[in-house]
């Protein structure tokens, strides 16, 4: 699966120039330059502790960049405009354990809006959670929880996805599912930045790789 042919130049989703982050005056990741356009999928590679999670949190606006500049959808990360079309999936999935899978999706829609053609039930079926719509998330297995988070991703209208280790805890079907969702998202003009340790069968359409040194 390759990125869709660019008719005009697709919009710039992320643009980082000499972006760096320091914590208590220690460099976490060095100066990075990269850009991500609509329809592209970027991969962040790096060993444990090299700063992948930190980078995603900077892009989401949860941490302030240390050095350099970064723009997300033409605005400051974390600004109103940027938040309107960004969604991050981190190590913590942000699901309410006491609520059912369906209720969690509804909360997501309440917060972020809903993609045009999205239907919670259909999406739950797509991620392989047919019979689990009304099960409390607390009672799902690790992989099933991840799938709920993926379903939420597919349901929301965000154009930029920041995914921290989306493949962890998923089985083969789950990994294929993530790649499917990514391909579909890119085909629709969205962009995604994904961290991974490279040990899994990664999505084929990667157009940009950011390497972090440990």
């Amino acid at each position: 699966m390759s990125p869709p042919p660019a008719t005009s130049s697709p919009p710039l989703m992320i643009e980082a120039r000499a972006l760096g982050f320091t914590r208590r005056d220690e460099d976490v990741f060095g100066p990075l330059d990269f850009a991500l356009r609509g329809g592209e999928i970027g991969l962040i590679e790096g060993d444990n502790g090299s700063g992948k999670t930190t980078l995603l949190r900077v892009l989401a606006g949860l941490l302030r960049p240390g050095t350099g500049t970064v723009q997300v959808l033409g605005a400051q990360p974390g600004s109103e405009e940027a938040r309107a079309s960004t969604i991050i999936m981190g190590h913590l999935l942000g699901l309410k354990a006491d609520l059912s899978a369906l209720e969690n999706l509804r909360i997501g829609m309440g917060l972020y809006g809903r993609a045009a053609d999205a239907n919670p039930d259909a999406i739950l079926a797509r991620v392989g959670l047919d019979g689990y719509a009304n099960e409390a998330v607390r009672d799902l297995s690790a992989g099933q929880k991840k799938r709920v988070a993926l379903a939420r991703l597919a349901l929301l209208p965000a154009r930029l996805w920041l995914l921290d280790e989306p493949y962890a805890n998923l089985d083969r079907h789950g990994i294929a599912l993530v790649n499917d969702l990514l391909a579909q998202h890119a085909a629709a003009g969205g962009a995604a930045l994904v961290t991974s340790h490279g040990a899994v069968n990664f999505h084929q359409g990667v157009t940009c790789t950011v390497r972090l040194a440990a």
Partner: protein
Amino acid sequence: MLPVLYAIIVATLFPFALGPEHALLARIAGGVVLVTVLLAMLLALDNVFRGDLDDGALEQMLLSPQPLSVLLAARMLAYWLVTALPLLLVAPILAYMLGLQPAVQPVLLLALLLATPLLALLGIVLTALTAGTRRSGMLLSLMLLPLAVPIVIFAAGAVGAAQQGLPWIAPLAWLAAALALALVLAPLACATALRIALDT
């Protein structure tokens, strides 16, 4: 539901600790109910953001395109409806059981009606500030209680005045003014506090 039970049980402990002397209990009934309701709200408050923080939902909220102050105002309203409203319903019963004069009941209720939303607003701003820390339980009480002191003083002042047959409007008017101010400022302060707590 549970903060109510907590308040009932704490209020029940006092007669045990002090002995069932009617005049004494009646004298302190107003104050004990006030303090008890305050403590019950405080306990519930800690769970509001603690849960959201632990499962990452707070981040999702922060990053959503909805204006943060609106989200937080909704959260405050929900919190007040779920914890304070039931407390307001049992407070008169507790006050009766402790022997508060019936004439003072409306004043107590009015004082609570003004004091609880004020506390909720204050508490949520502070909880937002402690959101970045992990040990927020005790810390929250520590920050909230000193700020709650003026609220308690005014509320208790009104109840005490009513118990002695004095005019009790003035302290309640102050509470009402503070509440009006807080209703406007708290959502903004809360949004700011959350940003401060979660940023680096």
